[in-house]
């Protein structure tokens, strides 16, 4: 015991303690209000995409479940929020809640099909289901507006007080607040016994049943939670832009979010946030220079990260930091 400085419980507590870097990160998310007030609408979409990436991180980064159809839930959330505002009530927060419930339910249903598969099969099944959802949204023209997008969305003021303004103060404040609250939830989840079980699934799918773990039930739960969070992200996008379109449920969005998460570093909670911010800001800046060719620069960025910072930006940085500490 002498060479173990902490009791096991204290050690685990320390694992989930807030670090100064984390606190600084969240304080920094407030800076755009003062430093970059012209970029608030971009910032709000970064926050929304970050939330979407965070939801995928629970699946991919923690449970090791790769999904190429995650936009299905983002899109379901987006359309649910839009339809709710159109037919029921324009208040944003109830809209988020309804979107979360509907997308969680869809996530659960999908998980019943996919939870027993791994690897390439899983990727292709999620891809197929995502494409099906996209096609259904296109075909259900009467409900979704098809390729023209959903019309008639009207969103009330947030908490009855804050109107969605042209500068995006409300949009960013609202998205950031929701992101932060759900980040706290995600943080609690990954530091819970369930989070540990997800890491176990990621680390060794074969061992889990041998310690009596109902892995499929865990994956179903993770899928449901991730779908709910993705749905909330989609609902946020609908509410802050007062629009919902097929793009929100498309394969492209599924692929983009996967790229962002892997770019930032999966399995670290912050990877998705950083990846979304870097990808979207880089895209905005590059396409400002030459709108036709931003793909080129983003492509180079991805290649560079893989070559020089394996396991994403955060993974690479922490490896570099570890080497630095050693030398």
């Amino acid at each position, binding site marked *: 015991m002498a060479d173990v400085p902490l009791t096991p419980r204290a050690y685990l507590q320390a694992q989930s303690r807030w670090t100064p870097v984390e606190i600084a990160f969240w304080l920094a998310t407030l800076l755009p209000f003062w430093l970059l007030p012209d970029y608030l609408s971009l910032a709000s979409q970064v926050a929304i995409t970050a939330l979407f990436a965070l939801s995928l991180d629970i699946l*991919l980064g923690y449970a090791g479940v*790769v999904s190429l159809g995650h936009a299905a839930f983002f899109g379901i959330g987006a359309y649910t929020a839009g339809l709710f505002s159109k037919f029921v009530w324009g208040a944003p927060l109830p809209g988020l809640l309804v979107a979360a419930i509907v997308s969680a339910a869809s996530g659960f249903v999908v998980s019943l*099909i996919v939870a027993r*598969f791994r*690897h*390439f*099969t899983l990727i*292709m*099944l999620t*891809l*197929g*289901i995502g*494409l*099906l959802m996209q*096609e259904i949204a296109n*075909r259900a023209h009467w409900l979704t507006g098809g390729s023209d997008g959903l019309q008639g969305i009207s969103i009330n003021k947030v908490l009855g007080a804050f109107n969605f303004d042209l500068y995006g103060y409300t949009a960013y404040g609202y998205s950031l607040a929701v992101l932060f609250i759900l980040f706290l939830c995600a943080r609690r989840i990954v530091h819970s016994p369930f989070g540990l079980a997800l890491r176990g699934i990621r680390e060794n799918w074969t061992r889990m049943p041998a310690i009596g773990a109902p892995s499929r039930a865990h994956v179903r739960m993770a899928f449901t939670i991730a779908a709910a969070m993705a749905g909330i992200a989609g609902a946020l996008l609908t509410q802050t832009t007062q629009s919902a379109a097929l793009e929100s449920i498309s*394969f492209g969005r599924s*692929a983009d979010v*996967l*790229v962002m998460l*892997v*770019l930032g570093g*999966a399995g670290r909670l912050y990877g998705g946030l950083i990846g979304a911010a870097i990808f979207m800001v880089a895209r905005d800046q590059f396409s400002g220079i030459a709108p*036709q*060719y*931003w*793909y*080129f620069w*983003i*492509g*180079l*960025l*991805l*290649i560079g*990260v*893989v*070559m020089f910072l*394996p*396991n*994403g930006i955060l993974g690479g940085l922490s490896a570099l930091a570890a080497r630095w500490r050693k030398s």
Partner: protein
Amino acid sequence: MLPPIFGVLFDGIAYGMLLFVLSVGLSVTLGLMNFVNLAHCAFAMVGGYVTVTLVNTYNWPFIATLPVAFIVTALISVVFERVFYRRLYRASDLDQVLLTIGLAFVSVAVAAYFFGTLQQPIPTPAFLRGSQQVLGLGLGNYRIFLIVTALIVTVLVVAGLEYTRFGAMVRAAVDNQRMASGLGINVDATFAITFAIGSGLAGLGGALAIEIVGLDPSFSFTYLVYVLIVVAVGGLGSIAGSFIAAMLIGISDIAGKYYFPELGAFLIYLVMIAVLLWKPSGLFGKR
């Protein structure tokens, strides 16, 4: 005289053949190297642009450009394999995905820069236009040509794998890498050559596809989904699997559209999901 559905099925087979040529390379690289190469269709696009350039700028006959499309694509791909892919054979799937999506992104921008964003039509030779009347069915000349070409490719690939020394090495490496290198097979070089051939076939597919589906810079992504579906349905690393899967997708797509047009785009996704639920590693997958 055969009922018209046979003509429709014939078209489905031709379409399936095209999918097969486009996807067989990816299936082999995924099976052999376990490498998730999402830039596969970028290589197919290279082949397409080689043909377009030769036909439109240098007035080559279309047929003569096909071997060139194969060779140029294979050479370019082997450069990429040596510079990028090789370093990531042992990396995680996710890093491979990131790298190859990055390459596909770059390919889209480079193609747009050099060739513009417009569709690239090519004048096909007269004997590939029009159609033949066989038993009352109109069979498109180009589709006949496509089927014949794809069958030749299939025979060459299968014969190459079954009856050559190199083929034996590839099969050994697919079965068990460690054992293969233990037997003195240079697995590294085997990978590189297989990758080059697989990408070269994609390039050939890209060139053949222009007449059917057109060519523009978004080709890198547009057909990726179909190619992945063929690979998944067929089973990784299985040439026979890719062939059957491509036929299945091609025919069920066409027959589905004829009999149940309202199912339209759903059908091939449903076919894939059904196959994977029944056989998770594909029709001919290992395990």
